[in-house]
């Protein structure tokens, strides 16, 4: 799928048949079937990936096969309906959230225009309330008295292949960003609903490759990118060389080193591609400046966890490596890099799933002596918390003018903002290292807009969807770009660094994307450095 033309898409967003701009469909939503065509769905999981995952202990990924959503026959198992309904019943017993979210919605519509997918596509089924109704209608039919008796009149409908296809379409047009849930008077969280639908779909072999391939890579090689240990090490060493040639400082690094004080884990994308590379270089410089005793791990070389976008079993299995590796290496605690969904897993799931982490120690900054009480039990500290504390104690020396080529703004990543409450720390850091401004208030902090490509949707075949879904974010960037001359969108998320780059190139050319730690490292003044004038900080090309 080629990238849609800017003028076309701009026009289509405003004037296309969109409920967001006033076109009301004439038919009831239950009567509008989904239609899969090239460009409106992400490629389905490859057979060998599904087979591999199905062979792993604790995981179940049945019905591996070659298939296409565009064909009528999805090659489902004969008893697919039974499997789905049983799966739903089981999940209702396991998750109170699901029961309550199925029963309590009053369809007030407060969530409707809060979704970036709805704003960008105008598709009624992208209103969070309707996305949930896709499942709720089946729930009513099977599990409620009113639904059984009154059927469609009570908003109930039979589970059919058509409904299943609809689930696939719309659970993969949701990035589980949770923006809608903060506006819901009952806190109904569409992320929970979407997660349940995705779990159900995996029961009958429906999943997308951009999720399951990273998952299987992460299981086998330790990271989404599939980097094997020597390659992972090579990549980090390249960055060390780059840092040295830019600054004259050669960061000291180690891999899988037993007895290190801290295990550092960050999304593997940061050692794989621009602009994440610069954030990784930032980590190297920062840790060198404070002389941190830390190690990288090639086994637990992934901060992210696409299991979160798959099912809770997979999430647990992938996440378990962090503690397993920390225990094997005998570190005191874990320091985590900048990543969005990784921090949802670490903050809200990790210790529940794979704890107690009693083989680790309560995290203490070796530089400042600060005890991170908020991570006392899970023993994992966010790099922004760690850095903000260093700055507060005057342990880092900055020359802000080294970032004078940057006029930044800050994008709150969905999960740190709405699933963790990590909002002020990055801002505190930015205040000390760069000249920056906020985007408009309804698009930041807990109301931040998703990049539009999270939850494994950052794949190129759905570029049209991604550019639409990212429009609300891009629009706010454009506003500060035009008003304040902002040329850099900083964030604390690896997926953002990749996806916002495409988004800005499309909607707001001239605005780059960077991690907060890149800006920190740009401005750091440290002993032994022989850096000249780096016009673009760590991005300066040196020959």
């Amino acid at each position, binding site marked *: 799928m080629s990238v849609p033309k800017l003028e076309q898409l*701009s026009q289509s967003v*405003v004037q296309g048949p969109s409920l967001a701009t006033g076109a*009301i469909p004439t038919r009831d939503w239950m009567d509008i079937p989904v239609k899969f065509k090239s460009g409106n769905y992400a490629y389905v999981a490859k057979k060998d990936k599904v087979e591999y995952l199905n062979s*792993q*202990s604790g*995981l179940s990924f049945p019905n591996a096969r070659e298939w296409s959503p565009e064909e009528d026959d999805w090659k489902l198992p004969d008893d697919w309906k039974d499997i789905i309904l049983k799966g739903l019943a089981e999940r209702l*017993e*396991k998750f*109170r959230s699901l*029961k*309550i979210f199925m*029963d*309590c*919605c009053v369809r*007030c*519509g407060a969530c409707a*225009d809060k979704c970036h997918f709805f704003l960008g596509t105008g598709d*009624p089924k992208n209103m969070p309330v309707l996305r949930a109704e896709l499942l709720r209608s089946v729930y009513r039919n099977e599990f409620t008295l009113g639904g059984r008796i*009154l059927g469609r*009149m009570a908003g109930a409908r039979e589970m059919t292949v058509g409904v299943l296809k609809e689930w696939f379409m719309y659970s993969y047009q949701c990035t589980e960003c949770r923006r809608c*849930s*903060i*506006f*819901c008077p*009952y*806190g109904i*969280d569409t992320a*929970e609903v979407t997660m349940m639908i995705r779990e159900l779909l995996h029961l009958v072999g429906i999943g997308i490759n951009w999720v399951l391939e990273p998952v299987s890579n992460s299981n*086998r*090689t330790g990271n989404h990118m599939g980097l*094997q240990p*020597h390659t992972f*090490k090579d990549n980090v060493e390249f960055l060390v060389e780059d840092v040295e040639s830019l600054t004259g400082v050669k960061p000291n690094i180690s*891999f*899988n080193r037993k007895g290190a004080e801290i295990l550092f884990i960050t999304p593997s994308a940061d050692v794989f591609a621009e602009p994440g590379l610069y954030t990784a270089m930032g980590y190297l410089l920062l840790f060198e400046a404070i002389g941190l005793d830390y190690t990288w791990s*090639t*086994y637990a070389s992934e901060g992210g966890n696409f299991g979160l976008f798959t099912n*809770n079993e997979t999430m647990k*299995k992938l996440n*378990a*490596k962090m503690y*397993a*590796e920390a225990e094997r290496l005998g570190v005191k605690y874990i320091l985590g890099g900048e990543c969005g969904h990784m921090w949802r897993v670490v*903050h*809200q799931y990790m210790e*529940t799933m794979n704890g*107690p982490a009693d083989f680790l120690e309560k995290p203490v900054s070796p530089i400042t002596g*600060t005890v991170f009480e*908020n*991570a006392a039990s*899970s023993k994992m500290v966010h790099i922004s918390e760690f850095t*903000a504390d260093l700055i*507060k104690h005057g342990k880092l020396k900055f020359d802000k003018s080294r970032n004078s080529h940057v006029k930044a703004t800050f994008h709150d990543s969905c999960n740190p903002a*709405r*699933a*963790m*409450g990590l909002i002020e720390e990055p801002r505190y850091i930015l205040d000390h290292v760069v000249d920056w401004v906020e985007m408009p208030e309804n*698009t930041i*902090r807990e109301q931040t807009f998703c990049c539009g490509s999270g939850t494994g949707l950052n794949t190129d075949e759905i570029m049209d969807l991604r550019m639409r879904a990212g*429009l609300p974010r891009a629009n706010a960037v454009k506003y500060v770009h035009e008003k304040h001359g902002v040329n850099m969108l900083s964030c604390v998320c690896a997926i953002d660094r990749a996806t916002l780059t495409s988004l800005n190139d499309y909607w707001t050319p001239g605005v780059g994307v960077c991690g907060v730690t890149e800006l920190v490292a740009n401005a750091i003044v440290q002993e032994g450095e022989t850096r000249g004038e780096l016009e673009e900080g760590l991005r300066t090309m040196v020959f």
Partner: protein
Amino acid sequence: MKYAFSFLAVIALILIAWLGSQIPGMPYLFGIALPYLAMMIFLGGFVYKVVQWGKSPVPFSIQTTCGQGKSLDFIKHNRLEAPDTTAEVAARMFLEIVTFRSLFRNTKSEIYDGPKITYESSKWLWLFALIFHYSFLLIVIRHMRLFLDPVPAWIGWLEFGDGLFQVGAPTWYMTDIGLLAGCVLLFGRRLITRHVRFISLVNDYFPLVLIFSIAATGILMRYFLRTDIDIVNIKQLAVGLVTFSPVIGTDIGAIFYIHLFLVCVLLAYFPFSKLMHFAGVFMSPTRNMKNNTRAVRHINPWNPVIVPHSYSGYEDEFREFMVDAGIPVEKELPPKEDEE
């Protein structure tokens, strides 16, 4: 169509009560049997539903944070929006339930040429919801006068406060107007706001029409058809119902039975409908959990045993590369066989 059906259903209910109560002997059905039955369904259904919800565990701590979490000393913690203690959760829940804070946050977005998206504060839904719910609550409390003998003084104060303005006698209550207006506003909103109209079900229109009719029949009874009913008999019946010794005196009037029957329908309908949001709002995990998951471990009662792809399995697969690259390993490579 969906709203039209709601009107038809309520009209049918009204006719049933109107005609039915005129049949000799039937007042016992409408005045005593059905209220007891409705109350039983309401209480039983309500408790059943809450217990059913409660039976499912909360495996993960999935709070939504709408502000800064508790972090470093110098980072200001938003105690209401990212609560860290039970007291802070209680405060968050209290304000959510009493002031509808999430709705207060509501914005309306518009898309203009460019494209350019704007968001502005939109408090209409919040306002309508407040008018509706508070009027309803006060009316329910005021009705306690019918069931309690003697009537507690505070009900009198409440009535005095509620009846601040007087249009003729008897005094009009603000909450009567509020409930009618609340129903009309919420109903009108469903028809007019395009996306809300598209998602609305019969389940959404019906309760509004039903509650409007309950309010309307109550008002008719109190202000317009007063001569038809005997308030002393009604009080006697009401007190009798709560003391389990109901008596139906002389003719009470059809309008009363219509009002009562609609209330019974509402009670019986309640546990099977979205009206259960009344209980659900207290139990929503995204709002009633502490954001302290890294400081205190949350327990999942069904936590499955799943182990990661083991380090040894990983090293076995990549040992050669690791040794070559100088990455420490647990098990060295086997000594190379002598070349022969």
